[in-house]
């Protein structure tokens, strides 16, 4: 789990970009958490605090035209892929300017402009959509690579196996990104699955496999790059198992260590491996980043966040009479 966090393959600019992107997602979700108690974001939220490395590492190797599908925990994926921040915050506030016009809430984020195809709140249900996107790309002769993000719980859904079998059989350009944060809601993975390497899934369905430390964004970035290159080259699909950890409660914005479902010290151990802190330290040690740059990042991000929340506050609610619209295309 301790891959060298700075490698020769990845250059400094990329490393700074990876850092900035993770920091931005963290700050945005911290602000959501801070404001959630005000109860003006009246929809369930599933924060990715602690898991930014997976989203950023993977999306950093994708093109704008590469479609991704996400889950109930979609903020980080949406943002890492370049999804519009204002549209996201507005959606959380149920405003007409939200990416779904307020109809979906935090679990349905999507942004066609950057190919965030869809986020789906039903566990596992999003995975075949990515395989379908890969099929469409192949049928239309596009060189897009589709990515399915899903968790260790989704891994138990039969539909994920069905989708992987199809992708493996047709050698489709898709990458299955399994973010193993060790829990489905409050239930640890060992109560739900047998003990065995998760990558075994790849052999069953004819996929290539990569297994990386999800809290080492550079490692994720490089593993994802290999998977995406294979897919774009036409060599076929890959499974990317990413080990990571959720710092906050499953649904909502609070700490939940007091509930006692996490073994003592587990959270602290993982917090010590925070993907952002680790990269910041490495960049500092390597002299690749100075305080001025850090401050610049922070203040740019802060400004962007204020802007998005102000815009959401000012935005109108969807008009009641529009509720009936767009049932049929």
């Amino acid at each position: 789990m301790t891959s060298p966090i700075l490698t020769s393959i990845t250059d400094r600019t990329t490393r700074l970009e990876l850092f900035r992107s993770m920091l931005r997602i963290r700050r945005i979700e911290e602000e959501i958490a801070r404001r959630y108690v005000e109860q003006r974001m009246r929809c369930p939220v599933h924060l990715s605090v602690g898991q930014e490395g997976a989203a950023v590492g993977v999306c950093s190797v994708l093109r704008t035209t590469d479609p991704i599908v996400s889950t109930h925990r979609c903020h980080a994926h949406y943002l890492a892929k370049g999804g519009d921040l204002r549209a996201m915050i507005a959606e959380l506030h149920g405003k007409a300017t939200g990416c779904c016009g307020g109809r979906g809430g935090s679990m349905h984020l999507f942004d066609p402009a950057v190919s965030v195809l869809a986020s789906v709140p039903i566990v596992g249900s999003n995975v075949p959509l990515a395989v379908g996107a890969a099929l469409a790309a192949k049928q239309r002769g596009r060189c897009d690579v589709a990515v399915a993000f899903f968790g260790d719980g989704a891994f138990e859904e039969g539909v994920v196996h069905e989708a992987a079998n199809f992708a493996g059989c047709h050698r489709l350009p898709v990458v299955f990104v399994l973010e193993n944060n060790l829990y489905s809601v409050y239930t640890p993975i060992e109560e739900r699955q047998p003990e065995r390497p998760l990558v075994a899934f790849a052999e069953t369905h004819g996929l290539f496999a990569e297994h990386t430390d999800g809290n080492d964004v550079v490692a994720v970035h490089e593993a994802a790059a290999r998977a995406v290159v294979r897919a774009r080259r036409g060599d076929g699909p890959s499974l990317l198992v990413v080990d990571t950890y959720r710092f906050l409660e499953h649904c909502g914005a609070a700490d939940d260590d007091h509930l006692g479902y996490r073994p003592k010290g587990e959270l602290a151990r993982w917090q010590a491996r925070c993907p952002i802190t680790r990269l910041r330290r490495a960049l500092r040690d390597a002299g690749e980043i100075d305080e001025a740059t850090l401050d610049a990042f922070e203040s740019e991000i802060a400004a962007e966040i204020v802007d998005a929340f102000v815009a959401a506050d000012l935005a109108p609610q969807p008009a009641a009479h529009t509720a009936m619209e767009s049932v049929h295309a």
Partner: protein
Amino acid sequence: MPDAARMSAPRIINAAAAIREATASAMRSDDRVFVMGEGATDPKGVFGTTAGLLEEFGKGRVMEMPVAENGWTGIAIGAALCGQRPILVHQRVEFSLLAMEQLVNNAAKIHYVSGGRHRAPLVVRLVVGRGWGQGPAHSQSLETLFAHIPGLKVVMPSSAADAKGLLLGAIEDDGPVIMIEHRWVHFAQGHVDEGAVAMPLDGPRRLREGDDCTVVATSYMTLEALQAVDALAAGGCNVDLFDLRVLRPLRLDAIIESVRRTGRLVTVDTGHATYGIGAEIVARVLTEAFGSMKAAPCRIGLPEHPTPSARSLAEVYYPRSPLIATRIAEVVGLPAHRIAELAHALGTTRDAVPLDIPHPSFKGPF
């Protein structure tokens, strides 16, 4: 009727061939249309409805599926979101129960939840099995499960012409359309234009005119109802017979107008009666035409138990034209002896053919 259609020579083909023809012409005119199904490319070609497509369009557009209905339904939805227009086919309605989550949560809702920006243009063809003792898990007519879901459109053709026209309409539609094909309707022969003319998915069609009673039927039961209605007409009782065709969105204006005139309503559908299609028709029509009703309505559907395999049990399971004629006559209030005569006459012809196959020459596939 557009020229293409009017000019084409009259031909008699059955609904299975009509479905094949609609699919082929849609695939020719739009290369985003493709077929997915278990058996789509096999020697039987889904009861002939996909026969020959592989040869013309190749494996890339006529895709054989693994036995993984939920998975490939989700894959179809993903492809549709990216601009493709898949046609999915399941050889039995029951197999699609595995894909309910994808259909009800993703296909039906993604256009709405995206504020109208996402489109999921796909057609899901489901076949209702009947006969040859295939039993409880290969014979369900579960249209209610789909018709109840906002965001889906649901059609049930009862003729070769409608099978072609409604399928073309479904393929042109920018949203998910469920087309439920009764296996016995596949054998329905009829005039079908050679031209590819999509029918709007916009409601019922009147098949017979009359002022004594309004009858609304769906799918294969429309054919049984036709026998009953024509027998009644011969007996001087004239029925306004509608084939419902489109279950969602549900357009009942013409039927309500008819009931305002006849004051009587009988529904005949292929599913279980309780919480079935007939319930919605009766509830809505009696609400709208309340003041005009002259007699209590009557619903004809399947009894409240699974489909038994044994012939001796299946015989009493499926309502047939004599029973339909009897119920209509009762609602109209014909004298008991007239009703008995009618039912008897109809029975001798109807029950002369085997009751567990669509017609004597039938040898499967089931």
